[in-house]
């Protein structure tokens, strides 16, 4: 729990001078994500670079060092009856804010409450020239300069070392209720998209093994009225269910098989893929467990207007994120070079060519 900025800058400078590659590590709970990288990389440990720098509940803004654990943030927010509305997965107590943004991780409420990048207001970043830079800010609206803060979402640390992140936080809803409807996948997809088009306080819609779970959250009277209108069985201990889904401790994630993630058009009909699967984000995120062919999965994702990633397990020395069109690939390489001219930050972690 300290400010290690000066030390981090020195480590980056030394690496840039010697050409050593750096593996940025927070709590180490997302090591299974991205590509497997060369062992000779030097580790930059961010777990100790932690602590909430400022938190003003009335401003709905929180700033913390990148190594701050989600658990610590949650404890501070709980005291003020506020939350990180993007419901980041806490794989363990060690999961950090920096890792969450770098891997763009958001939970079941994402289509309605927004993603981690949606809540980012600013970052401080050490670039490949060991310069400590500030982008964005601590206010809700800021359009000065390019949005380098949100660019970090999904960059797997390849653009620099984030030292500090400012976020928008939100009040917790006054009431939450979860309805369960027993139905097949096709029916569930139809209902998810229908319900999402109604002006009701829906905040999550998930289907797994014949059951559709829809969460309502907001003002008590509004939640009750919507629950009555929609019908379905009330889920007991709903909070545990949604937390297990957000933290990927739901039974689906217990599989030993490789896990695949589709991010696609929510109305896409049921896939003709066998194996255990879970639909989240009202149809826009679909998880599959099994040994599938990479090219085939890419093709299915494209047809569904979206992308695939090999989320966990499988061959991690090959590509694990959806292929990028060649001009976009080149653009990303040039962008990385603009931040990290010697290519020292997490090389090859997101893509072999980045």
């Amino acid at each position, binding site marked *: 729990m300290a400010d290690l900025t000066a030390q981090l800058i020195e480590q980056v400078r030394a690496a840039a001078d010697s050409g050593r590659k750096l593996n940025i590590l927070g709590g180490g709970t997302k090591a299974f994500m991205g590509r497997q990288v060369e062992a000779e990389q030097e580790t930059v440990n961010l777990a100790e670079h932690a602590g909430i720098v400022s938190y003003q509940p009335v401003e709905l803004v929180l700033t913390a060092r990148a190594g701050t654990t989600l658990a610590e943030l949650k404890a501070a927010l709980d005291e003020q009856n506020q939350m990180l509305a993007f419901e980041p997965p806490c794989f363990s107590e060690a999961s950090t804010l920096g890792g969450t943004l770098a891997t763009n991780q958001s939970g079941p409420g994402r289509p309605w409450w927004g993603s981690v990048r949606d809540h980012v207001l600013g970052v401080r970043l050490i670039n490949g020239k060991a310069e400590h830079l500030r982008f964005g800010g601590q206010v809700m609206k800021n*359009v000065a300069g390019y949005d380098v803060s949100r660019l970090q979402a999904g960059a797997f640390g390849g653009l620099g070392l984030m030292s500090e992140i400012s976020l928008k936080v939100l009040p917790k809803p006054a009431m939450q209720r979860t309805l369960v409807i027993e139905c097949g996948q096709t029916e569930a997809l139809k209902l998810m998209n229908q319900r999402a088009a109604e002006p009701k306080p829906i905040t999550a819609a998930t289907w797994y093994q014949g059951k559709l779970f829809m969460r309502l959250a907001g003002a008590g009277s509004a939640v009750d009225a919507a629950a009555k209108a929609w019908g379905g069985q009330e889920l007991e201990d709903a909070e545990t269910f949604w937390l297990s889904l957000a933290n990927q401790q739901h039974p689906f994630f217990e599989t030993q098989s490789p896990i695949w993630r589709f991010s696609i058009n929510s109305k896409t009909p049921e896939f003709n893929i066998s194996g255990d699967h879970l639909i989240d984000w009202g149809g826009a995120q679909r998880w599959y467990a099994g040994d599938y062919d990479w090219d085939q999965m890419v093709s299915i994702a494209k047809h569904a207007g979206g992308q695939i990633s090999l989320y966990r397990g499988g061959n991690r020395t090959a590509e694990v994120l959806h292929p990028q069109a060649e001009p976009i690939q080149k653009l990303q390489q040039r962008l990385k070079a603009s931040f990290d001219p010697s290519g020292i930050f997490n090389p090859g972690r997101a893509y072999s060519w980045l």
Partner: protein
Amino acid sequence: MQISTARTAEQFARRQSLAERFAEFIDPHYVISDEETLKPYECDGLSAYCEEALIVVLPETVEQAQRVLQICHAEGVPVVARGAGTGLCAGAMPHSEGVVLSMAKFNKILEIDTQCRAARVQPGVRNLAISEAAAPMGLYYGPDPSSQIACSIGGNVAENSGGVHCLKYGLTVHNLLSVQFLTMEGELLTIGSEGLDSCGMDLMALFTGSEGLLGVVTEVRVKLLPRPERAQVVVAGFDSVTKAGDAVGEIIAQGIIPGGLEMMDGFAIQAAEDFAKAGYPLDAQALLLCEVDGTNEEVDEHIAAVEALFHRLGATSVRTSQSEEERARLWAGRKSAFPAVGRISPDYYCMDGTIPRGQLSHVLLEMQKMSEHYGLRVANVFHAGDGNLHPLILFDANIPGELERTEEFGGKILELCVEVGGCITGEHGVGYEKLRQMPAQFSDAEIVQFHALKRAFDRKELLNPGKGIPTLRSCQEYRSLDMNITPNATVESQQDSKGATHG
């Protein structure tokens, strides 16, 4: 102010030859090179800054726009993309030796996908037109800048436009799914997808709000939202700005996120009431408009809570809209605040800083002192929910030196915003206008990083050059001299006399 001086024979010849080349594949009516027809394109919504373009083209297909860019890239000709021209930072002001690429002909809504609540539109489609087209399905497009009747979605993407409903529904960046754009080299790229996110670094976020410096938008896929069952607005008067500011904090502390939360100071209330007859309390020093939307039950619950809170915190008057007609009338005052102020002063200059809400009283007080120092009146309109302040400085451009004093005053306000932890622009963009204040918010290293980032998209730096990011040299001059130099301009043009301004 006109930025550059008279044209040389060489420039006229260049204009002629480029116009002929463009007319080979674009309807010659849409290749504009005569001074009279070029006139309307000299500025955007901020008419204080004007420049005549070498040529204006209005392509009708992506292929035509692509060829324009390829030719300009090969010839080293700057290109400024233009939407509806409603921007407020001179971001679409032409380059004197460059081409203005107007996307006005790209005005078709290509698809409204009701099932997954999205619309695919061309960049010249007006913001409001999307909501109108989606209305029969009970859907609408969230961001609603005040110019929504005229501004185009391509321009919204370029500026990351906001509006009065940002706190709850987000900015443009939160409401986009994918963007198709042309690079300066004429390459057609798509970022984002039909899903909610994409693999790898978030190019969508980077591109949104990049002020036409990274690419030219050719197609946008936006999210649509279900229209709330009901909306009601509570209007409350307070005898001090501090009390009104506290009330804003209290609403948030109660866990209510209003659809819109606006504040006006005494001067703005007076002007708006004279203009719109909205029924605002004229004795109030500050006015809050708090709109709650959602389901019928939610609105009932939250309206009661907001009314009680306003009474408890000493509001001098509290009034809640009882009909759609009344709601529209109560909003009319706020929405016409700019023209209302325009009526009581020959000219006004609109600023766009953002501050942490808690700093409001301090900032208003400091601004009052500056107002006295410069001898210029200022009215305040504030997106209180998200801390975005729009001070309107009243002045008369016909009085020698008053525009210069106004610009200096405005610059000081923006620097004050940065000082208290805010930023120089919340939603209008930097463009040409706020280059001068960029060094107050960014260090030289950050400015250098921005330029490097731009070159990753546009290696010859031909897209909207001289906007958005100041040159390093002008930043250093700003720091050493603290004077009103004009960044990114030559020494000669800084001495040009300043002409008309908007009002």
